[in-house]
């Protein structure tokens, strides 16, 4: 059934008329990313359609997954943070092939997203059933509830004294439209739905993640929380004041825009309340929080926004913040620039655009957090999800499905079996293998399967003739598809050195920047291995420098053995990796280049790009 559905969707995409496509937005390029230590030490590969990149990454459980991101994000991750040069090989495609190929990558990406979301839903079902069987008192965090409740606070918060006039006004409007008892009647409906909720575990492999037991339970709890917010007029919490030097104040024009925004949100939420969407609760919670914050901004004439960080956001430890403080402060200037851009875009809109508000919230949250952490030398929270603010809270003593012990036990056994078998199925469907199924082979399989008109012979040969090593694949691809334009985008360190050589004494720059001790560019990163000399810009002396690095690695390894009881093996690991990556340097090959996690993206601007033709 599922396989048939896939075939139907794929066939439908290929059958769609392509003559209606707009003019091609940009080039198609095959990207080879040079090696560095750590992840993808053998190099990496990706394809680029204009501003969009697709590349395969090795994920947990020995699977490989297609990742989609903007080229700017890809470039930042690999050229700056990873300090790797990117070789971009432009391949000429006609418009039909271009759109056809992009549709294939997009559909593969979406299909994998659906498959992995389904596995995640199955895991959620198993965890929820385990909690219910064990009688765990609190629920997992429910997205959106964190803007009104703290962890383990009941959503029956009739004891809360402060009320939000904006939310009260919306509740009054809903009562006027749907009757005085509409909120309590809807609440009873949701409670009844929760009580009768039952796992439909057996249906999931052919279904959607949204139909999962845990997802339906989460949606009902979100709806119940939203109704509690409406009934009690609970004001939003977890808000931030937008940053900027004196830019907090709102102009008359901006206040007028916010008044219009408030009316629009009220209208949208009124329609959402009447919508048949089962997952209306999360959207309602986010909308209510924004309604309250917008109203407060109008009242105080100061811009306030939602804090987008999740409660369990990972952090950059305070020690790292201290070590990189100067660089992080430079990054902060860029964050403020993002806030200005997002603020300008939001207030320039002729009507309320939720995605613009989401971006403004993300930009402001990141800037405020970075400002706070670097001023106080404390942990820096990391934003790891998309653009929607989804701060969640656990709910203590939430209503539960009425399942008896035997039903729960049986459902839990089925859920475990289903999760295990589906996980195995995905491992078979998307296996990772160092040689047979890596970031290169999977890209080339998609390219070879595309049956491109202009490169039919070459593309057909890709799968069998190409090596699995990234830089060999790029070279071989050029041989197969004919004339290509080839660009080399330098790594961050290469580019920074070029600028130094232009304005300073060459010998002085070389000596100063050649090692980690005196370099002004490099700040030692926690995940980098132990080494002393950079060897990526030194070919002839590379073996000698490699020997020095090997010595450094061995010394760090010995020190790490002594420090083992204290640091849990961190120095030992760093030393061992340092020694390992020094060995190729003795043979004239430089893999390790250091990393630069906290460098602003604008430091890449004006990069000198080498244009080459190799066919």
């Amino acid at each position, binding site marked *: 059934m599922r396989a048939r559905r896939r075939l139907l969707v794929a066939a439908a995409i290929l059958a769609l008329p392509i003559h209606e496509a707009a003019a091609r937005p940009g080039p198609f390029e095959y990207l080879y990313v040079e090696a560095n230590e750590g992840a993808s030490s*053998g190099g990496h590969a990706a394809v680029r359609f204009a501003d969009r990149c697709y590349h395969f990454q090795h994920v947990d459980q020995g699977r490989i997954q297609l990742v989609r991101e903007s080229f700017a994000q890809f470039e930042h991750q690999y050229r700056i943070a990873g300090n790797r040069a990117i070789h971009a090989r432009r391949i000429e495609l006609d418009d039909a092939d271009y759109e056809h190929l992009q549709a294939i990558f997009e559909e593969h990406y979406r299909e994998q997203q659906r498959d992995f979301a389904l596995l995640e839903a199955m895991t959620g079902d198993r965890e929820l059933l385990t909690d219910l069987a064990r009688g765990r008192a609190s629920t997992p965090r429910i997205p959106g509830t964190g803007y009104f409740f703290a962890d383990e606070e009941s959503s029956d918060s009739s004891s809360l004294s402060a009320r939000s006039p904006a939310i009260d006004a919306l509740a009054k409007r809903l009562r006027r439209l749907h009757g005085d008892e509409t909120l309590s009647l809807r609440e009873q409906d949701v409670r009844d739905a929760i009580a009768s909720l039952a796992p439909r575990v057996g249906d999931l492999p052919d279904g959607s993640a949204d139909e999962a037991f845990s997802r339906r339970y989460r949606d009902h709890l979100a709806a119940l929380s939203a109704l509690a917010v409406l009934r009690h007029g609970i004001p939003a919490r977890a808000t931030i004041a937008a940053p900027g030097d004196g830019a907090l104040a709102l102009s008359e024009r901006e206040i007028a825009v916010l008044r219009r925004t408030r009316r629009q949100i009220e209208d949208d939420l009124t329609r959402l309340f009447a919508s048949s969407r089962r997952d209306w609760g999360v959207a309602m919670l986010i909308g209510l929080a924004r309604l309250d914050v917008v109203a407060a901004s109008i009242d105080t004439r100061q811009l306030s926004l939602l804090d987008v960080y999740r409660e369990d956001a990972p952090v950059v430890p305070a020690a790292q913040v201290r070590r990189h403080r100067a660089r992080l402060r430079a990054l902060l200037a860029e964050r403020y620039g993002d806030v200005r851009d997002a603020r300008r875009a939001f207030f320039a809109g002729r009507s309320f655009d939720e995605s613009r508000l989401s971006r403004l919230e993300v930009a402001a949250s990141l800037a405020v957090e970075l400002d706070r952490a670097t001023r106080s030398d404390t942990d820096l929270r990391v934003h790891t999800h998309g653009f929607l603010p989804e701060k969640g809270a656990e709910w203590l003593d939430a209503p539960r499905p009425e399942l008896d012990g035997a039903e729960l036990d049986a459902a839990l056994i089925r859920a475990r079996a289903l999760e295990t078998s589906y996980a195995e199925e995905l491992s078979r469907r998307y296996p990772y293998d160092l040689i047979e199924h890596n970031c290169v082979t999977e890209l080339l399989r998609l390219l070879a399967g595309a049956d491109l008109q202009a490169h039919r012979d070459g593309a057909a040969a890709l799968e069998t003739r190409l090596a699995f090593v990234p830089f060999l694949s790029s070279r071989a691809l050029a041989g197969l598809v004919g004339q290509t334009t080839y660009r080399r985008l330098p790594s961050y360190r290469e580019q920074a050195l070029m600028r130094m050589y232009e304005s300073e004494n060459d010998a002085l720059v070389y000596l100063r920047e050649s090692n980690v001790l005196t370099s002004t560019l490099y700040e030692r990163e926690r995940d980098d291995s132990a080494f002393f000399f950079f060897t990526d810009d030194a070919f002839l002396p590379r073996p000698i420098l490699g020997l020095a690095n090997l010595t450094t690695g061995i010394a760090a390894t010995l020190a790490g053995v002594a420090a083992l009881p204290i640091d849990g093996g961190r120095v030992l690991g760093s030393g061992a990796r340092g020694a390992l990556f020094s060995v190729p340097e003795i043979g004239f090959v430089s893999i390790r280049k250091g990393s630069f996690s906290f460098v602003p993206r604008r430091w890449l601007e004006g990069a000198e790009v080498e244009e080459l033709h190799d066919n």
Partner: protein
Amino acid sequence: MPPSTSTQVPTHCRRYVAVPVLALALAAAGCSFSDSSASISKSVSSPLTSSSESSGSDESYKEDVRDATAAHIAAGGDAAELRVRIGTLAEEQGISNWEASEPTNRAIGAGLAKAGYRDVEVEAFAAGFTQSEQQRQWIQQGFKDAK
């Protein structure tokens, strides 16, 4: 001393030594791994990587919604499945209430045009799919603009 980048190394030298050493490197770590340290550096750098990304509903999002709608229609999918798919795309874009999003609904209309729908079919689709008059109008406008 002039800078000497790795691309300036003689090609024949690199080729002889690179293959066995790269094999060593591959054996050490293989392909790019989606790990937490990578996501930390990525996230500290902000998901807003250009000023155009700060400006919200971009063209590629509208194209995604249009293409997803067209493919879904062509495959004979039902309205509930399409709602889930549009909801997923909208969430990625920072839109929780996509039924109230003009760009999203106009793009759905464009998707119907791409799927080859006629006016009467669009009306029937909108009647079963939309939750409000406003949403219906956006879909029809998107359809007319793309036709």
